[in-house]
């Protein structure tokens, strides 16, 4: 279970708070969606979950399976099952995709006390997962994300997720930039990972994604706080009304 309690966050070296007391619980086996206006702090929340150092938590706590993760380094969190699919995946010149995937998969396996993958074992797994996501393995011989299209980068994130077998998946606008077919393929990939042992937090601007990945709950994050929570129908309401009412709240 993911428990976010009264989380206050600011940018290190700056005064302004971005997250102003987030309270959120995502039980295992559930998928929650977060929607909200641009600049409301959705990516900030995602980064703080993954352990990015540019942010400072000034109050509150984040518990994953009852354990606070705030003091953990990003790689320790990854080993504990936390995975963030980035809104803007980065390019890593000079590091081949396959090397990267294998290093990452074996690093988390080692920390989780699982056996590391052999070369043939790894290749078999990566070919299988890549095929499911319609990714050409040849592409993975190139440096990570270098020269990939926006949609290819997003698919590459989901491949990484599939390879690392996380238990808390945070997807930051994974749908943006995907064409209609890719959206379905990626959603299928995400749905394949749905299990009673996994919790998922899906950040999106578009109700359409939620037709594919049907959430248990939808939350509105605006001006640094969860302003409203509801069932999947909340996404449809937002589609019509927009975020105007929350703006008033914040004033």
């Amino acid at each position: 279970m993911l428990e976010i309690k009264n989380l206050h966050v600011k940018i290190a070296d700056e005064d302004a708070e971005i997250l102003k007391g987030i309270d959120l619980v995502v039980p295992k086996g559930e998928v929650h969606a977060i929607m909200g206006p641009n600049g409301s702090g959705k990516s900030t929340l995602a980064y703080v979950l993954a352990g990015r150092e540019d942010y400072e938590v000034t109050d509150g706590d984040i518990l994953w399976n009852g354990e606070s993760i705030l003091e953990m380094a990003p790689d320790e969190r990854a080993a504990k099952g936390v995975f963030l699919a980035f809104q803007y995946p980065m390019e890593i010149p000079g590091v081949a995709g396959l090397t990267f995937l294998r290093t990452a998969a074996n690093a988390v396996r080692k920390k989780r006390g699982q056996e590391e993958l052999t070369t043939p074992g790894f290749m078999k797994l990566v070919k299988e997962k890549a095929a499911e996501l319609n990714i050409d393995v040849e592409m993975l011989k190139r440096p990570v994300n270098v020269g990939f299209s926006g949609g290819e980068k997003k698919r590459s994130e989901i491949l990484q997720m599939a390879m690392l077998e996380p238990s808390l998946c945070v997807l930051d606008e994974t749908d943006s930039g995907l064409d209609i077919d890719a959206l379905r393929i990626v959603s299928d990939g995400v749905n394949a990972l749905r299990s009673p042992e996994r919790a998922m937090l899906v950040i999106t601007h578009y109700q359409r994604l939620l037709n594919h990945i049907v959430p248990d709950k939808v939350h509105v994050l605006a001006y640094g706080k969860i302003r409203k929570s509801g069932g999947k129908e909340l996404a449809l309401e937002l589609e019509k009304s927009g975020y105007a009412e929350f703006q008033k709240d914040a004033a």
Partner: protein
Amino acid sequence: MNVAVMKTKAEMTLAETFGSVAEALPGGAEVKAARAAAIGRFAAGGLPHRRIEEWKYTDLRGVMKDALPVAVGDETKTTIADVIVAMGAIGRIDAPRFVLVNGRYRKDLSNLSGASGITVTPLSEKLAEGDASGLDATDEDRGASALLALNAAYVSDGAVIEVKDGTKLDLPLLVVHVRAGAVPQLSVGRNRIVVGKGATVTIAEIFVAVPGSTVDGQVNSASEVQLGEGASLSHIKVATDLGSVTHLANWLVELGGESSYRAFQYTSSVGVARNQLRATFKGEHAKLDISGVFLGRKSEHIDTTLFVDHAVPHGESRELFKGVLDGEARGIFQGKVIVRPDAQKTDGKQMAQALMLSETAEFDSKPELEIYADDVVCGHGSTAAELDHDLLFYLRARGIPLDQARALLIQSFIGEAIAKVDNTALREALMEEAETWLASSAAKSV
């Protein structure tokens, strides 16, 4: 120019001991005369110092405070096993090798079978026969001239490599300079490489030390290289694990028409290194590619100085150097490209990049273009940057621990330069050397 300068203790000793050492060095009367003339030139110029523009970052008067005894012969009981261990990852490459220990050719440790089409003769033999060619060599940089003169005066041995026209050899020829024993010495070697028309070869000069030997010493090494028409030479230099040695290397290269010269220089774990290379285009349509990697930590000082002289039209030159600097290490890159008035249609590009792993490391880069022709394409660039924090976070978010993430990013940074080494065995061995270096230090500091 001829302002009288006080000589340092080291300079005086180097000039004065010549009389007593000369007898023990190889060479007949002509060679002895050439050596005496050379020590005269050295005495006049002295060690390169910071008031010589090309040496402003590497002041040898300050660095070489003491003159070490000149190595005239090898008295160590170095074995082939010692040499293989000293060579690290490169020791596992099965290739013809010419081994020198403390500046002297060791036939018992060498094995030249497989080097078909190539004649390798110890320079000491040539000198003994009275061959004094090259001992009068000078350079436009008077600092380099002084070191060449010191080299000519004291040279004990080296490899004279003649590659027959049309030879094609996949195996690299390894010229291994080994330092061994407990006594710090000045080791002086000189190689001569002549690649015949249309021949294609890889020659690697490896400078290493037998583990457990003195960590002190000085090396003065010179290589003269001539590429015949259409010849292709991949010329690799590796200097690793040399302790606090002062390592001075000077390569003088002449490119014949349509020849291709690809140099790669790898330097790590050395006290002070100066790798100087002058390449002159003698024939048209020749190609030059000089690249390298330098890895420095603690107070190591690694200087790469290049002079690329486009003397004729239609030449192409590329330079790419990548450095990783940790602790208080200092990296220097000086790259001068001269395009003479006749050298139209020259195409030259240069890039030097340093990755700074600490705030106290320093990188000085001085690219210089001197262009006297109008129809040319030339460019250069230089950067010094820290490891990208966002990329580090990305890797760590995927479960890769900090040390490993840093190593991966550093490897990818230098990998671009190491990729220039065409010979697969050497390229992989160098990548392995770099990984060992990273594992031993750089990856651990934050």
